[in-house]
Every structure is written in C-alpha cells, then in structure tokens.
C-alpha cells in the first residue's frame, strides 16, 4: 500500500513535468532542455516568496508557479524566438536550451550561493491511516492538488480557444497557420504553461528536492522519461507514462535500491519503445509507428 501511495504521488508530480515537455515538443518541435532550470527557478521563487513576502502556503505556491511561468517566457524569448525557422532549428534549439540551462545554474550559484534552502511543509504535518498505511499530509496534498491541476490543464486544452489553438498546432502547423494560429504567439502560451506546471511540481516536491543550483537535472530527466515513454506530444500517454515511471521508482526503491531507479526506468523505456516506437501513445492508439 505504501508503494501504491508513493507511486501515485510521484506519478502526479512527474506527470506535470512530463506534460510540459511533451506539449512543447508537440506544439513547437522544441525539446526544451532548459525545463530543469525552470524547475529550479520556480523552487527558488517559492523559497524567496516564503522568506520575503509571506509563508502562507497558497502564496508560496503562487510564487513558484509565477516564477516558473516567467522562466518559461525567458526560454521563449531567449531560445525559441531567435532560432525559430532558422536552418538546423532542431539541433540548435537543443544546444541553446542546454546553454541557457548552464547560464541559469551559474546565475543561481552567484545569486543564492551553493547551500540548500528549505521550504516549509505546505500541507501541514498531520498524518492519517488508510488500509494500514500512514499517509502524510504532504503526500495526500500533492496527489490531490497535482491531479486537480492536471484536470484543469486538460479541460483548458479541450474547451478553450487557446487550448484548441495549441492542439491544432500539435497536429498540423501549416493548417494552424491557415486558420490564424501564430506559432510564435502560441510558443509564449505553451512555454509559460509548461513553466507554470514545472513550478507547481517543484513546490509539490519541495520536501524532497530542496532549492539549490543543480536541483533541476533530475526532474528534467524524469520529465523527459515520462514524455518519451508517453510518446512525445500525447497528454494521455504522458499521464499513463507518469504512472509507470512513478510505479517503477516506488517498486525499485522498495525491492532493490534507490540507486537502481534510473536503470530500471531507462530499461522500461527501452522495452516499451522496442514494442511500440510511439510509446504509450502508440499503445493507446493501437499503432506501431
């Protein structure tokens, strides 16, 4: 039961990061390697908010989400807009986002120093029992709020005008242009929403991932695993992949050793992509290619 709770908890949070990476790839053809530094920026934003504005949990969350969205806008302005449409866009955008990531990490070193910061328990310290398993408020809060946010994102994508624009862009960029959907304007929306989701995930994970300059690497890796496993561009695939990744992590650390987590997760990717090159999305759609 503990493994199940941990799985759902991790899946919910990794899903938020993976969906952002997946949307950015599908909508813009951009594999954003600066997503990890966006995560770190949001963590610092939440910590700074706690230290300087208010330690009320809602305000701390808001601080993290707003800084995450702003970091997404910075990625858009400094990487996407200057390179979009240029020759070798795919490769250059990956290198540029990696470069931005390195600049971000050194900026954090310079501004905040190398030492870890800490963020308070945002959902309190209470615990309750479910089926003989003790569940902390932190975990239950993360599960509920991450799922609420994910549902809101899906509803916005399915029901709003901007959501239709983003979905259209993921399907057919030329068709999208023909109905007036501008790729560069959409880039702002996509990267800011992705950044805000990473920011929300960062605050939810703030009891495991403390604000420090290099903290974004592992969440970036987890997000990439979820997005790749889910089939880049598929929201449904990313949600299922997040469950698989969270489950693998919980089971590996319980029965093997936490040091084996990335090994089992990459093993899972290898197996799924060998059987279905489009990842979980391919399984959901019943396609092989």
């Amino acid at each position, binding site marked *: 039961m503990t493994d199940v709770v941990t799985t759902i908890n991790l899946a919910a949070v990794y899903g938020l990061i993976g969906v952002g990476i997946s949307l950015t790839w599908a909508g813009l053809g951009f594999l954003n390697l600066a997503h990890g530094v966006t995560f770190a920026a949001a963590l610092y934003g939440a910590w700074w908010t706690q230290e300087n504005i208010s330690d009320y949990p809602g305000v701390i969350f808001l601080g993290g989400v707003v800084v995450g969205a702003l970091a997404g806008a910075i990625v858009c302005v400094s990487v996407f807009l200057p390179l979009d449409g240029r020759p070798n866009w795919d490769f250059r955008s990956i290198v540029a986002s990696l470069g931005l990531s390195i600049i971000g990490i050194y900026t954090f070193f310079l501004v905040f120093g190398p030492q870890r910061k800490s963020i308070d328990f945002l959902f309190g310290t209470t615990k309750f029992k479910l089926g003989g398993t003790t569940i902390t408020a932190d975990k239950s809060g993360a599960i509920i709020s991450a799922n609420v946010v994910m549902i809101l994102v899906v509803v916005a994508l399915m029901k709003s005008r901007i959501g*239709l624009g983003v979905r*259209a862009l993921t399907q*057919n960029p030329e*068709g*999208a*242009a*023909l109905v007036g*959907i*501008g790729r560069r304007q959409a880039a702002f929306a996509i990267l800011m929403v992705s950044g805000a989701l990473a920011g929300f995930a960062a605050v939810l994970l703030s009891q495991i991932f403390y604000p420090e300059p290099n903290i974004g690497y592992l969440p970036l890796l987890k997000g990439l695993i979820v997005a790749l496993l889910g089939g880049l561009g598929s929201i449904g695939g990313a949600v299922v992949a997040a469950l698989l990744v969270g489950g693998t992590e919980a089971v590996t650390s319980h029965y093997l050793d936490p040091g084996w987590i990335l090994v089992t997760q990459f093993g899972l990717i290898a197996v799924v992509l060998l059987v279905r090159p489009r990842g979980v999305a391919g399984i959901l759609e019943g396609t092989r290619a």
Partner: protein
Amino acid sequence: MTAILEVRKLSAGYGPLRVLHEIDLAVAPGERVGLVGLNGHGKTTLLRSVMGLVDWRRGELELDGKSILRTPAHRLARAGVVLMPQGDALFPGLSVRDNLDSGAFAAGWRERKQRRDRVLQLFPRLADRLGQSAGTLSGGERRMCSLGRGLMTNARVFLIDEPSLGLAPGIAAGLFSTLRELDLEGGTLILAEQNRTLLEGWIDRIVRIHHGQVAGIERGSPGPDGGPAEGEGPETER
C-alpha cells in the same frame, strides 16, 4: 474598381526550383476567378505563394492596396484570406467539431456555434460526424470539412485548390453547387481546378496557367445566374 487582391510580377518557387515566372493578376471585389492548367504548371504554387507557403517569392502582392509580401500566413488568415489547400490541412487527431471551430479561431470565436450550424446546413453529412476524428473521414468528407472550416472564418478572399480532386463526380458536383451559392459579400474567390467543366456557368474569369506563367485570360462561360451574357464566348485578353 480597386483590386482586392493584386499580384504583380510574382515569381516564386521551392529551393532552387522556380515555378512561377512574373505572374500578373488583379482580382476585383465580388469576382470569381478560376485557375486552369495542367498539373505541375503552377496553379497550386500561385495560391500557396499568396499565403507565403513557398520557399521564396519575388515581385509584389497586395491586399486592399497594401503589400502582403512579408506577411506570414497566420496574419493573412486573420486579415480575411483563407486557403483551402489540396491536402485539406485538417487536424487529423481532432474531432470534426474542433476542426470546424478552428476556423473561428482568428475571429468570431463567440459566434462559432451559429457559424457551425450554417456550415452543417451546407454539408449535412458532417453533422453525423461531429464527434469523429477528422483523420477517419472519407476523401469527400475531408474536403467538406476543409471547405466548412474555411467558411467558418470571416474570410473575404477565398483561395480554393482543386476541390474536386479525388472525389466521385456526384460529390464533386455537390461541393461545387455549394461554392456556387457562396455569398462573397464583396469578397472574392480564386479557385484552381483541372476539370474546367465544373467552372462553367458561374466563374467570371478563367486564367490559364502554363509553365508558371499566365497563358491567357478568358471571360467565364455563360451561366443562368448572372454570369457573362449568352453568346459572348471566351475572350482572350492576353
């Protein structure tokens, strides 16, 4: 009368390939123009180059007297120019409803339901397919969906590329009857079509494109609904 769309000395192509050679064409408000010519001679490239969907173009392109040579496709769409391309350019993973509604993205989002109802009156077959993915539609239904999406916009300039391509004659005739009824409201329609008989009776001018150049311009053939007068016959202007 001032041209709504004017093309002057337009050359365009893909990579090193030059497809259009200094095309001149002016289209007046309310006018219906048909582009005819053999496959591969530049009809599609002419329509795509108006939207900027070619690798390069030179010359001048004006909409309402203003240059649009550097205007990207999405801004032209917002300005009321709609291209219904040969490949349909639908969103295959989205439902027919979403595909139609995307036509109202640039303008008229709030009135999309009324506009959709109007389109469904023109293409009742789509009404049964609203929840279905566009990628699962038949060829004829995809054309209807693409045309329907174009009609969901508040376009003034309709650029329609080979609507009859790959369609059974009966379905093609139905589509053309819808296009014939289209109320341009001072806008214009430019239609590329290989099957010239489908243009008879309702198109005002026929432009023959040959080897990327305008090989001739003819008055449209007589029609019962206000087309050129009976007996005039085709007249070559160039």
